[in-house]
């Protein structure tokens, strides 16, 4: 007979509602990153449930694989593919939302009703006997005896998937990337030699060294090359003349 101890009950009723709320939150938050975080939370709670149910190895693997690798991959891609894009939640396909919600309510309700009606046919056993040699050992024993063929097949699948992903995401370079040496030579070859030593940093010779303040050249004129092109496009550039260290041009001083 499966006796479920009180601590587990407490843990379940504490975490299960949280995980459901987090899952529901996944559906309604606008930012994909928030969805990802909520999903990661659900996965961690599931891992805790696994461990509570005697699947220690699976629980830890769930965290390492799902939370650690898979969700991290999701976050990574999310950040590569438009960080700021937050989804609009207005439905574009007519009627889909209500159909989906109705179907989901029916589906979930039926499923819960069916589970409630289902019986195991005997009392639940629990994993004390199966885990007597240790959960890891037990799983290893199964994995390398009964399930060795699926194990091999699935490892082949994993490698194939990795290769497939590499092929899909691979971006073929049409020309060779110039080496640092070549870049250096090219820099000296083309254009004037004035930039050969690198562009001036922002705020040089000025009292202010913030990124949005152009550097001042020794003659007191601002150097436009010292400002990031993005800032320039955004128009976030501050006039650097007021921060000039030493007055070179008397006209500016008079204006000041």
């Amino acid at each position, binding site marked *: 007979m499966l006796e479920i101890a009180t601590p587990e009950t407490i843990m379940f009723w504490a975490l299960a509602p949280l995980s459901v709320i987090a899952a529901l939150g996944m559906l309604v938050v606008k930012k994909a990153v928030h969805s990802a975080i909520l999903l990661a939370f659900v996965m961690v709670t599931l891992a805790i449930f696994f461990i509570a149910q005697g699947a220690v190895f699976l629980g830890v693997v769930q965290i390492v694989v799902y939370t650690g690798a898979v969700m991290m991959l999701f976050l990574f891609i999310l950040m590569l593919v438009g960080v700021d894009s937050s989804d609009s939640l207005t439905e574009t*396909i007519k009627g*889909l939302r209500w*159909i*989906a919600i109705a*179907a*989901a309510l*029916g*589906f979930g309700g*039926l*499923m819960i*009703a*069916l589970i409630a*009606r289902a019986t195991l046919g005997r009392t639940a056993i629990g994993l004390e006997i199966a885990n007597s040699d240790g959960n890891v050992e037990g799983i290893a024993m199964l994995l390398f005896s009964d399930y060795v063929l699926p194990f091999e097949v699935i490892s082949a699948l994993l490698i194939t998937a990795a290769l497939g992903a590499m092929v899909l995401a691979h971006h073929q370079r049409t020309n060779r990337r110039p080496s640092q040496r070549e870049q250096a030579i090219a820099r000296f070859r083309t254009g004037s030699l004035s930039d050969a030593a690198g562009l001036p940093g922002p705020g040089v010779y000025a009292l202010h060294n913030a990124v949005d303040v152009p550097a001042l050249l020794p003659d007191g004129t601002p150097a436009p090359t010292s400002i990031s092109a993005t800032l320039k496009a955004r128009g976030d550039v501050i006039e650097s003349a007021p921060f000039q260290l030493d007055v070179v041009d008397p006209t500016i001083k008079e204006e000041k």
Partner: protein
Amino acid sequence: MVTSSSLVYLIGLPLFGAVFLLLMGRKADKWGHLFATAMSAGSFVLGLLHFFAMTNRSEEERPITQTLFTWIEAGDFKVDAALLLDQLSICFVLLISGVGTLIHIYSISYMSHDENRRRFFAYLNLFVASMLLLVLGNSYLNLYVGWEGVGLASYLLIGFWNQKPAYATASKKAFVMNRVGDMGLTIAIMIAFATMGTVSFDGVKEAVDRVGTPTLTAMGIMLLVAAAGKSAQFPLQAWLGDAMAGPTPVSALIHAATMVTAGVYLIVRSNFVFDAAPTAQLLVVIVGAITLIFGAIIGMAKDDIKKALAASTMSQIGYMIVAAGLGPAGYAFAIMHLLTHGFFKAGMFLGAGSVMHGMNDEVNMRKYGGLRKMMPITFATFGLGYLAIIGVPPFAGFYSKDEIIATAFNSGGAQGIILGSVTLLGAVITAFYMTRVMVLTFSGKPRWDDGVHPHESPALMWLPMALLAIGSVTAGYLFTQGEALVHWLSPLFAKKGEYDELMPHSVVTVLAITAVIIGVTAALMKYQFKSVDSVVPTDVSLATRLARNDLGQDVVNEALFMRPGQALTEGIVAIDERVVDGAVRGIGAMTVGSGATLRRTQSGYVRSYAALILLGALVLLAGIWVVTQ
């Protein structure tokens, strides 16, 4: 000394030659013919070594077997790919590889101007390998592989000059008609498998006692069908004449000396089946007798030298089949005639090739005449072959044919009288048409066209002819010396029953010689002492016209098989178009129509599909809900 483990090289050498030459491509063009000849010669030398080794062994130890690998294994049924070399096989091995090698040598010169000579030699090697496999296989299934192999080689070689549509058609015809015979062999193998559970010669021989006569009769008839197909026997004889489309060495090797005798081999090899199935045996005799006369009659009317020889081949094989059908008394004589025939007929075909070589590939004998002086060596070798085939003592054909006639007479009763008469009549006609060929070609006035300069062939061509001529002179004497061949082969066959000598041997000899004299005289009267037109006379009797048209074999075939077949095909095509295609198109139209309707649900939005899946799952769950209520 050679052991059984070297048997595979008998086949392996020419097979390697074929594969190697085909795969090497143009690189081997310069030396491919020499290589192929060497492979064939190597096989012959190995065969000789085996022969001597076999003569050194006692009678019981002579058959040797080499098992290569287990080919099929299914339950109790097991077939090894194994080779068996016994007294019968060795005769064939020597004939095939020996004559084969001579013809390789001949072809080096004969085909020297053909740009595809390497391919030709590869096919020749393929043929030699397949034929050797045919005679060396230790089971019907192994034999079948070789059987199909020679069929393929024959097809490839008849159609070697397939740029001419007529030749391509001829090769197709040979292939299709052979397929009918092959079906017989297939069914025979199936019968053996189904009723005896084995397909090896030894196994079937042992099982003969177990199964009933009807089964054996059925198997025997099917084997006869196979033999008839491969050996151009009635009613499957029509392909042989057209097979002369191939290069002459091919005609000599395949369609005179070796492949067409495979049917005789099959029947002799299956002697235990036929001995136990008298009905089948009788059918064999009947088929042989009909073909004997049939071929001989055709031979009398043909003006094409190769076709005349082909008809002769058909007739001579008829002799062998008759002998083989006579049971234990005749098997050895069938083989003896087969071997002697191999020598003289191959020699004559090569002679014909030599004549054609000197006459700018002219095959019409009415355009020959008086070639004796131009081609003395060809004349001599051809003449020796001629003397052998018509049965002039002491040439080879005399001995073998004489024995067959005697055995036919002695088979007893009305059958004996009829068979004896038929074979004797055959001898008369043989003498007639062969004399006709001889006279038309080599004596009389020259009738050839302007611009043709007959000349003797080079040594590379006449040497094989000379060797074969020597064979046709001496073989018969050697085989009958102390009944050598009969003794050699006797362990393989059931003991000859005691029977009365109805007709003493000396009487038969006299009768046979008389028949030859009658035939020769008649031919001389008609062709030597009268002038021969170089154009074909048209005011001839109905019989002659019939004979010129191969006694209507093609007409019969066409009326009996081709027309109904075409009608059937047309009917099936009609059914196919209306019913089958109609159904298919209807289904297609239905699919397209329903697709056009269903396409509206395909919005392209994955999410709506997902919603549909969700609804489907909902329905499924509801179903479960209802079912488990």
